[in-house]
């Protein structure tokens, strides 16, 4: 599978020629895909492969804007998505808090949980991002757990998408997830 570099402006612009000869032009590749999908939807045609078709055609026309997907790119995408998952988790925790008051664990329990998470391979540092991401993360954490402090080595859980500086404070039931390491406190009540 090829990946398009969105930072390179393609020679001839962003466009896609559909199988019926129609040409879809956009301001970006994402825009072209949206238009091609909308066009096919109006015609009642299948939309499953539209994105792949646009990318394949663009790469065939201008190979210099494409590259093979590599592990580094995938890891970066995963980091971006982890931040999204963490923010979503915090947003949901905030919504839950509005209806049911959250129950927090004591300092000793929090320290024990943090100790497990710090040594865990699934504890992923949150990448530096935009101002709003950092501000949202900080504001949501304060909103959910208040002034309770955590170890700065805690990041996001790559399996559950939870924000560990907050989740280690919240009293939550144990869950069954085969991806979690054996020593994880989320698998058993700690």
């Amino acid at each position, binding site marked *: 599978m090829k990946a398009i570099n969105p930072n390179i402006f393609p020679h001839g612009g962003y466009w896609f020629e559909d199988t019926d000869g129609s040409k879809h032009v956009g301001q970006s590749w*994402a825009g072209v895909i949206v238009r091609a999908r909308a066009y096919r939807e109006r015609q009642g045609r299948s939309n499953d492969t539209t994105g792949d078709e646009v990318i394949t055609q663009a790469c065939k026309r201008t190979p210099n804007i494409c590259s093979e997907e590599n592990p580094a790119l995938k890891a970066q995408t995963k980091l971006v998505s982890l931040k999204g998952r963490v923010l979503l988790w915090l*947003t949901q925790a905030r919504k839950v808090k509005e209806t049911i008051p959250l129950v927090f664990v004591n300092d000793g329990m929090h320290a024990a949980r943090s100790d497990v998470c710090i040594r865990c391979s699934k504890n992923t540092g949150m990448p530096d991002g*935009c101002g*709003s991401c950092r*501000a*949202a*993360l900080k*504001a949501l954490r304060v909103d959910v757990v208040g002034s309770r402090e955590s170890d700065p080595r805690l990041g996001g859980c790559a399996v559950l998408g939870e924000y560990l500086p907050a989740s280690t404070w919240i009293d939550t039931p144990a869950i069954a997830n085969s991806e979690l390491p054996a020593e994880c406190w989320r698998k058993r009540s700690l």
Partner: protein
Amino acid sequence: MIKMAWKFLVAMIIHQWAKWRGYEIFTPPGPLQYRDQQCHLCEENEEGQCRICKCLTLSKTLMALEDCPRGFWHRVWLKSGRDS
């Protein structure tokens, strides 16, 4: 990189100032829904990340004092404890 650091600094100053002055940090439900809809339909939204500002749309829409780089939605200045 310098541009991102500058934007981060500005964002943090605005949020801290707003918090200090008693403005809402989070977007109220109505405008939040509108913002989510606009971002969902936007061509620059690439799997939840804005291509223009490189921010996650989730965080961008959630924070009241953020605005859309394409101008589809604006900052919400709302004093805490008041109805919109």
